[in-house]
């Protein structure tokens, strides 16, 4: 464990907000920038020699410039820089269209209820890869530039298909040898679902307390090489 924690940088979609707030609440030195999940889903980002940047999004571009100024360097690509990201998930844009024609996705081995139109696991993997191949490619390159940690979104509900897509993306991250943390492991005693008290009013996004709990879990599980302030 380091004696002096490095500054944590959060870059991601709206789910990164709770993680940043949680880190700050724990007394960690944290900063970050975010833009909407739909822009992430649409691939409005690029990895340059100075790090990951939004593309065609004036406000996030300005925010990124502000972040870099606060970090007092032109780039967040220091090898030791810890970057926590939600890159690649963005389930709110990925999952609903899958169900437009009545399909539901199931995690491997999960029982499939009668009367439910479904697809094979192989199809689901190909479908996810079609929409996320570039995200994973960028994540692999980015992980060679910084100490990258991908965090899956809060397992906030058991809506059809969400868990299957989540599991599939986790698998693909592992397969790509990316460091990825699944918050559902922290909520095993609560059925793998985040308790309502740790969710915002929309029932989707985590609160500051949720973010703090996930950050603590990542430190405890050595996903983040940090010492939490007492």
């Amino acid at each position: 464990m380091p004696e002096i924690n490095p500054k944590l940088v959060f870059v991601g979609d709206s789910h990164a907000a709770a993680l940043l707030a949680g880190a700050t609440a724990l007394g960690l030195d944290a900063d970050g920038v975010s833009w909407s999940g739909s822009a992430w889903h649409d691939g409005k980002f690029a990895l340059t020699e100075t790090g990951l940047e939004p593309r065609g999004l004036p406000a996030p571009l300005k925010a990124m410039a502000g972040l870099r100024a606060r970090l007092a360097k032109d780039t967040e690509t220091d090898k030791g820089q810890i970057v926590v990201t939600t890159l690649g998930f963005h389930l709110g844009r990925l999952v609903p269209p899958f169900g437009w024609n009545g399909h539901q996705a199931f995690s491997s081995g999960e029982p499939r209820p009668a009367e439910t139109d479904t697809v094979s696991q192989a199809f689901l993997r190909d479908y996810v890869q079609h929409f996320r191949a570039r995200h994973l490619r960028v994540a692999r390159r980015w992980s060679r530039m910084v100490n990258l940690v991908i965090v899956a979104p809060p397992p906030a509900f058991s809506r059809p298909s969400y868990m299957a897509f989540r599991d599939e993306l986790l698998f693909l991250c592992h397969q790509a040898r990316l460091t990825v943390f699944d918050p559902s492991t922290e909520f095993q005693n609560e059925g793998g679902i985040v308790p309502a008290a740790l969710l915002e009013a929309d029932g989707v996004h985590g609160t500051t307390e949720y973010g703090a709990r996930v950050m603590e879990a990542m430190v405890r599980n050595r996903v983040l090489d940090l010492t939490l302030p007492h």
Partner: protein
Amino acid sequence: MHLCHAGFKGSQVGRDFRMGRTHDRTKTNRRAAGKLGTPAMTENPYKTLPPSAFWRSGVAEAGLFGYKNLWKSPWTLPSDARFSTFGSCFAQHISRVLVARGLNWKNAEKAPGLTPNALAQKYNYGVFTARTGNIYTAAQLLTWARLAVDPSAVESIEIWRSPNGRFFDSLRPVIEPDGFESVQEARASLATTARAFHRSFSEAEVFVFTLGLTEGWEDASTGQVWALCPGTGVGTYDPDRHVFCNYAYPRIMADLEAAMAIMREVNPDLRFLLTVSPVPLVATASGNHVLSATTYSKSVLRAVAGDLAMTRQEVDYFPSYEIIASPPSRGAFFEPNLRGIAIEGVSLVMGHFFAGLDISGPPARGGEDAAAKRIYDSEQAMAEDDLVCDEIIMERFNNA
């Protein structure tokens, strides 16, 4: 027993040789009368026949691309008529051309939303109205009709396990490029397609079926039909279990009638347009030369389709087989392997199809499109989620 086609003197109600049932021959007689006119006013019935009734004017002088009135639909269909298409590989062309022409091809088993075309093709979505794969025989069609009204019966369909641990359902052995990961997954997929097959006749005006083969394989113990002979690609051939069947006219007729009865029970207004695939057999297990076996197979299928069209108001026959495989074409539309059909042949076939099709009736349906509404609602929900996400981002991130 023989089938006496109603000709000049056919009785109005004839004895059906197949099932000992009576059936109405009004349709046959009406057609015959329409073609032959009133004998009393002419020296012989052929004098008033149109050029298409004579080989010289209808075929020899018209030329391959000059056939007139080759087919005329007996039905005036609604302008928004939905066509479901199934059958052997030649049937795949029909769905493509219907879509290309802007007709209402029924896609009862769409790929999940936003699936790219290449992925949909890889998993055989959009080839037929439901993801059945090729249905070569009438026995297979009957199996699907039975599954459609009782999807739980998929439990009786045998699932093969390959040496590498993947699973293949025996009705659609090549529907998934690499098979399924489990028996449960294979059965869930079969049930999904069975429900889609139900929609293909419950939510359509015309069921187009292309008859492909008389030869097939069955399980001796269960009677289940197989889409392909076990051992030809997937599965393991067991001579004690896997029985070769060269279905004869009576069995094909009975299976087609049974399948149509199941479908009409659900949708009494459903019409059937039968065709026979001009694609020859790739191989025969009959013991005969493949050329003879092909001729036998296509002849029987053509006869069954023709008899059904002559005796049933809800059935018609479209002559795709004749356009491609009859002597005047001199085999011109076959690819060099003498099996595949060149696109020019498909175009000619479908040209005749559209020339004879009558969709001048008023639209059958109106109102809201449920699928479109579901997508619109989903888009709205995602847009609202975006607003929430943006608020969270504004609040917590970008105030610096």
